[in-house]
């Protein structure tokens, strides 16, 4: 079903396809609205999030401001979804990077094979002889 983003009774409502937007990104986005707006996330149907923000009573908006807010919310949802993609795709590299940075060499790769001199003597064996 097609939903249209709208402003209804002072509430800014945006719909997001669950196959395109992650739940994390929606909450991370709404986090920044919490000081001035009531925020809400629910399902419009199985495949669609309904995301809404409504100004607190102390924060009345003009029509123009509401239009701007709708645009901002739409844009922020896209931004946070993209950020979330980067975060999730790069989580492993990031963990590896930080582990390497603080590891004092434990995570550095050793050259493959035994340590030996170019002539092929096995140093470990020589030491034991």
């Amino acid at each position, binding site marked *: 079903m097609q939903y249209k983003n709208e402003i209804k009774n002072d509430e800014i409502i945006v719909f997001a396809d669950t196959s395109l937007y992650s739940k994390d990104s929606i909450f*991370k986005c709404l*986090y*920044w*609205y*919490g*000081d*001035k707006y009531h925020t809400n996330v629910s399902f419009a149907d199985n495949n669609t999030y309904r995301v809404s923000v409504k100004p607190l009573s102390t924060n009345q908006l003009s029509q123009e401001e509401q239009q701007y807010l709708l645009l901002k919310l739409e844009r922020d949802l*896209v*931004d*946070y979804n*993209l*950020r979330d*993609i*980067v*975060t999730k*795709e*790069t989580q492993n*590299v*990031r963990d*590896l*990077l*930080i582990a*390497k*940075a*603080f590891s004092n060499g434990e995570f*550095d790769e050793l050259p493959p094979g035994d340590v030996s001199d170019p002539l092929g003597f096995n140093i470990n064996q020589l030491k034991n002889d």
Partner: protein
Amino acid sequence: MINEKADKRSRKFREIDQFDLNEQPQYYLLPFRFHRITDDKEIIVNEVGDYLLLSNGTFERIVKRQLDKKKDADLYGDLIANFFISEEPIPPLIDVLATRYRTKKLFLNYFTGLHIFVISLRCEHTCHYCQVSRVTQNKDLYDMSIANIDKGIDIMFKSPNPHVTMEFQGGESLLAFDNIKYAVEKAERIAKEVGKGLTKVICSNLALINEEILEYCKEHEILISTSLDGPQYVHDNNRHKPHASSYELAIKGIELSRKVLGHDRVSALMTTTKLSLDYPVEIVDEYFRLGFQGIFLRNISPYGFALRTDKSKYETEKFLTFYKKALDRILEYNFSGHYFTEDLAKIFLTKILTPFNVGFVDLQSPAGLINGVIVFNYDGGVYATDESRMLAEQKDYTFKLGTLDDNYNDLFFGKKAQEIANVWANEALSGCSECAFQQYCGADPVHNHATQGDMYGYRPNSDFCQKNMEIIRYLIELMESDSRIKKIFERWAKTSTH
């Protein structure tokens, strides 16, 4: 029937279209973060603080793999060279990146360097914004005892840091100058024995400074740090001294101190108050006129404000306007050939433009409290930061780590320290975790607690966040729009790493 496809697959050489001539390159993303700088520019910053400024929509194209290797050759090259993307799942140079990350967090290697001794709470000033003044006479009650000084020195030398700094604060520290002398001489002896570096600083309003004190400072290589809020009408309004001008005493003190100790052994710090906000240019001019090499435009003190109100947000906006006007003025001096810095900008710029970091308590992650600074209060209490002991003056002991009678491990690694450690890395805080400026900014649990009532903090209405985010954004906007400013900023950043 001959299966042509299968046949081809079995050949030694593959068809030419099997090779990587795709215009749409296959690449892997590396960790980085994104922020909008202006209406038409956006920024991406990687894990070690390198940034690329891009035109709007580029971030989306990068993430959606819409770059064209030929048409976007420059951008593609930049992204690869600066570790934003990689053509292999794990970049071949990941060890280089790891070393750079380590360099950015090098301040963690040394542990606590700055040890603040609140040598006396007594003060002869009655500044209206100061919570700690107005206890004047009783020496026994408000001076640090010799026994506590001994214990403080003992703890200081247990720090693994090869170079420790001992800073005497007040109240007015010079009211307890005899105790300072005792502390300095004892610390010098031990530093020599154990082979540690020792820097000594006296923080004073200089009203009581005289040649005798300064000769002692000279002999013992003690630095002087004083307070100067701007021109006389600002300073004297902020700092009330009965029957005298605090400004005149400070200026006289600065001149005398420079004469005896040398010009660069004396520094000054300003406190921004509501009154200061109306005089950005005059305050900068005053510092310039007095021959300082820069000024630190510090945020208006949050203590006493209650956040989650529009008031503090409004105050922060006013501070930002003040800051930008003052910075403009500072840049004017630089345009005309002078070297004159703004020190908050200098801290950010060092992080933005160099491979290094700055050990500045409020702008580190993990935070600088305990890791970088510790405070020994006059009464033997040990606090995480200077602001923490100010809170204690309002009977809030949240950041009291213990007393000088406790052992080192309990103070620095005990329950309280662990509780604070849960919230001292901005990498793991809501809001900050996805913020492009994470590497440039820091975490300040004490500020969060003081202004928002909990250490974790709430970024959307945090004045700390609002201020840092806007100043960092503004600095980048400035230098990217004017190459002269970029040169000046590069010079500031460079000089702070020497």
